[in-house]
């Protein structure tokens, strides 16, 4: 049964893994972080570098330096911290090449999901009203994506938008909805 036994770290939260690594500095802890985030690091590097080989090299570098960084950095939320580290590594390489064509469209801030209690406090009619305040394209994309569960491609095809426009309409629409609902004091426990 040895093959079926996963390491003990798989059940620990990121925060506990970081604490554990600071105590023991075991490579298997870094391995567990790689299992959780290796594909996100590689994908993000690919997005910015547009080149598989550079993406692979930078991902390699991120995980090689990870242990040292965990020991020396203050980390509040590991996932968003790792996202920032990854993007910065990509930016450094792009700057060295003199080709910073990167558009930082999203801030790497931790997007804490709303708790169950706060979710229960959001009134459907308030959400409906907030949806109506959105731009048409954002509202249509949000409805199709979250209510009708249409894929990006289906939405793009139906609304005659390109895929990027669909993605940004959903992201922006979601953000604007949250702002609207906060303005209506719907996130009472999460000001």
């Amino acid at each position: 049964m040895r093959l079926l036994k996963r390491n003990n770290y798989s059940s620990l939260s990121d925060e506990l893994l970081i604490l554990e690594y600071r105590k023991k500095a075991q490579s298997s802890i870094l391995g567990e972080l790689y299992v959780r985030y290796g594909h996100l690091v590689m994908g993000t590097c690919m997005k910015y570098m547009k080149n598989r080989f550079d993406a692979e090299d930078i991902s390699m570098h991120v995980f090689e330096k990870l242990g040292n960084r965990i020991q020396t950095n203050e980390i509040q939320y590991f996932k968003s911290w790792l996202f920032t580290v990854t993007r910065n590594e990509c930016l450094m390489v792009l700057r060295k090449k003199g080709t910073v064509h990167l558009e930082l469209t999203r801030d790497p801030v931790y997007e804490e999901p709303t708790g169950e209690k706060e979710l229960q406090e959001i009134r459907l009619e308030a959400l409906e009203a907030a949806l109506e305040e959105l731009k048409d394209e954002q509202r249509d994309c949000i409805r199709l994506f979250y209510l009708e569960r249409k894929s990006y491609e289906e939405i793009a095809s139906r609304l005659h938008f390109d895929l990027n426009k669909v993605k940004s309409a959903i992201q922006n629409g979601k953000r604007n909805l949250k702002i609207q609902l906060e303005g209506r004091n719907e996130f009472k426990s999460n000001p």
Partner: protein
Amino acid sequence: MNLNLIHSLFGSSSPLKRSDIETYGRTTDPLVKNAVEQKAAADSFDADAMEGWEELGYDTGALNRLDKQFMPKSNLGWYIGGGLAVAGIVAVAVVVIFTWNSAEPESEALVQQAEVETDHEQLNITLDESDVVLPALIEQMHDAPELKQLQPSIIKQDFHDIEAIRRKEPPGPVAELPILELSTDRHRDVEIIRKHEQAKEIYLHDLKLIDYRNYRSQPQVKTRQMILTGLPADYEETGMEEQDPTWQEVNVPYIDFIDKSMRIFGQGNYKRALSRFETVLETYDMDVNARFYAGLCLYNLGEYDQSIPNFEACINGPYSNFDEEAKWMIGLTYEHMGERVKARKIFEEIEKEGGYYKDQATKKLR
């Protein structure tokens, strides 16, 4: 409007896993795609990563080198061992269900019927026409002598080296062409060709390809498939009728079709690969991927006369990604044909242009 919307919009979402990326790349089910897209949309890191994986054709094989270095051995074992164990459990379960069902009384008929249908579904196998029958013209071709072939491993190495050289140079502009709807007409190019420029690339089975998903809307290949259903032997007496399998015209996502084609090409099965590239060209007759690899198949099948127009089409086509390789292949093809003057002219051009094949061209000219 319901509460699910509130949860989907603002609630916590499970993190995007590697298996989600693989599933997203393989599935054509819009609901499954939406589920993964919702996960990715919940977090910037996941969203950026998904955009990166799109560039890689959602092929997580790109993590192989990283896995070797960072994946804990226990996890590698778990993935392999877990996979084997799951396969074993499924196999045992199938045997148990079949045995149990055959002993069930009539009162369980409906349950049994449902299970028959489920099992029946799981036994479906889809065959592409090229798996079974090849066009007569291709069927009669024969592999060229091995020494006269260009093995896929060589072309993979060339791609790798060319890419390594490119990495040292600042990247040039990448084509951003308007995405157009798929035409239902066959034998017709559906893209507007404005310039000869570098397109976005992906690697499948270590072979370079233009990623047409960036330049076509819902790229699909019209092909013929047969679904082999078959009934388990235990159900022969249940009165269910087995339908005769028939060929059906279907639209297969381009990326799935080309992925299988590249695997077949990489295995050195040039006749089958050629048949599939021909199928692509029936829908997109200026498809540079199909032109280039069809040219290579024909070269390895010793059909030099036919390979040259395919390589030339790559150079004259809308994208420049295969220019160097195609020109080199034209030179080699003329050489094999005994057309020394033409071969020499091509090698001289390559030498003058000073690209990746310059040194090899210089050797040829000595």
